[in-house]
């Protein structure tokens, strides 16, 4: 079997960041492998452990430093990586990312492509489904569990839906967007990290994919990010300490007479 995981490198959203003149200050950011993509890598590796002939490749579209995210996935246990790198990618939205990934996958052989359910920085969650539609293959999002059936050439996906957990069977080839509720991604071992340095990191350019530069980056995007800002901060509220029964009567009073929600 052949799986690909689409990996994005994202700023660590748990860290503090600065916004100046409507722009995110990129220099102070710490970049990581998107957590949802790490879960997709982890789940593939679990399958790989059960089905030894699973070949797992990673693909990332993005700037030079994106190779660190790929190295992380390789250190976790993926076989090789493809880094589609070009300065023209700056300002890409999910549509532009899907254009590039479509061109990449057009002539590739694969059983499944796994994506993250969303990128941690943008929370957009469009790329996987868009890519599936472009490649004309079925997809499921928000996966919390995977079981492959090699003989039937299919995958049973458990997804968190509105009515509960839905089990859906997809035949290969297909795309699954993964939730981090699927697993806890492994921390690469020292040996894994050493090995990752010898694993193939294939560079791919926009020209290699036969894409015009205006199909990518800002011009390949359908939406434009105009500006960023901090949200209106909630007013710092009141804090109460003391006996439980006192705290309760204070709260009841506040909710009834001040907030008027009781």
């Amino acid at each position: 079997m052949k799986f690909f995981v689409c990996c994005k490198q994202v700023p660590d959203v748990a860290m503090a960041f600065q916004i100046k003149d409507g722009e995110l200050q990129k220099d102070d950011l710490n970049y990581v492998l998107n957590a949802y993509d790490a879960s997709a890598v982890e789940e593939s590796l679990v399958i790989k452990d059960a089905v030894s002939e699973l070949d797992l490749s990673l693909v990332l579209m993005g700037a030079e430093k994106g190779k660190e995210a790929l190295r992380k996935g390789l250190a976790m246990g993926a076989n090789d990586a493809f880094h589609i790198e070009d300065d023209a990618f700056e300002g890409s939205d999910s549509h532009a990312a899907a254009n590039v990934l479509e061109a990449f996958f057009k002539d590739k052989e694969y059983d499944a492509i796994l994506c993250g359910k969303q990128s941690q920085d943008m929370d957009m969650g469009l790329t996987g489904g868009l890519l599936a539609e472009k490649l004309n293959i079925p997809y499921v999002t928000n996966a919390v569990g995977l079981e492959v059936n090699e003989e039937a050439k299919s995958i049973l996906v458990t997804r968190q839906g509105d009515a509960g957990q839905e089990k859906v069977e997809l035949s290969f080839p297909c795309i699954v967007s993964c939730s981090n509720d699927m697993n806890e991604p492994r921390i690469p071992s020292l040996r894994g990290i050493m090995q990752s340095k010898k694993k193939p990191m294939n560079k791919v350019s926009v020209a290699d994919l036969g894409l015009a530069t205006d199909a990518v980056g800002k011009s390949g995007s359908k939406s434009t990010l105009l500006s960023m800002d901090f949200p209106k901060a909630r007013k710092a509220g009141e804090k109460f300490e003391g006996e439980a029964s006192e705290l309760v009567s204070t709260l009841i009073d506040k909710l009834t007479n001040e907030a008027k929600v009781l």
Partner: protein
Amino acid sequence: MSKILVIADQKDNKIKKSTFEVLSEAKKLADASGSSLEAVILGEAIAQEAKVLAHYGVSKIYTVENSMFKNYLNRPFIDGLKKVIDASSPKLVMVPTSESVKDYLPGLVGATNACGIMDCSAVSLDGGKVQIERPLMAAKAVSKMESSDDLVILSIRSGSFDAVEADTSLSCDIESVDLGTVDIKAVFKELISAQSDRVSLDDANVVIACGRGVKDKSGFELVEKLADVFGAAVGSTRALVENGIAEPSLQVGQTGKVVSPDLYIAVGISGAVQHTAGMSNSKVIVAINKDEEAPIFSLSDYGLVGDLFDIVPKLTEAVKELKAN
């Protein structure tokens, strides 16, 4: 003159509250820009319920009824909605965010070659451009975005807009659209749902959410009792879902659901950004935590510093008494 199309979201053939929020805002946008407003609803048996959409000033309603909508799969939604979009040819499509919507919308955006933007919190029309606001960076920042595409499809974050009062004197044309044959390459196997009589997170005015602080199932049940006296929904952090103490569908946050009730009570929750991303828009936030430094206190209106095992049962009693009077 352009057109706005709202996709109604329903559960068990009942239109969800979030749909009325989106319809109300779409009507304002339509009136302000001289556009017309249409709506579409898909489901197993929704012809009757569809009429309710007219009460929000919609000039035409499309219905797509088919038994294929019984168990959720994305393909019938993508194909059905593509048909309606081709027939209606709107400039802007708006739909309230839900797990199903998050699933089928990317495919619909691809199938219609539209510009898609998920989870918007504000929308405006400026000539041929659609401008939106949406949170990002785990809701620690908001962004302004714009698209001048011919077709823009937006999902709308719950609680972004207030629903107006329905005007039951209004009615309009209803057109039934045939789904036709759908080429489905996926098979629905099973639904594992934890049925509960409690109000769902999507529709709740009050949410009582709990985190690792409740420790175990019996702590969780204390919170459930509190929710019951409030008539509230129960929410949870990822920590309790991971431990198997809370149902996955109760998770609130970046991975889980976004809620914005009138009252959100966070019990034993630290307030990690990935959790607050899903609840920081609640109208009134109460936090109960024994650590006075817990980050949740920085966004709560009322913070009770103390042991939840002491406070929650007393609060339950007090609310029960209040409601009885």
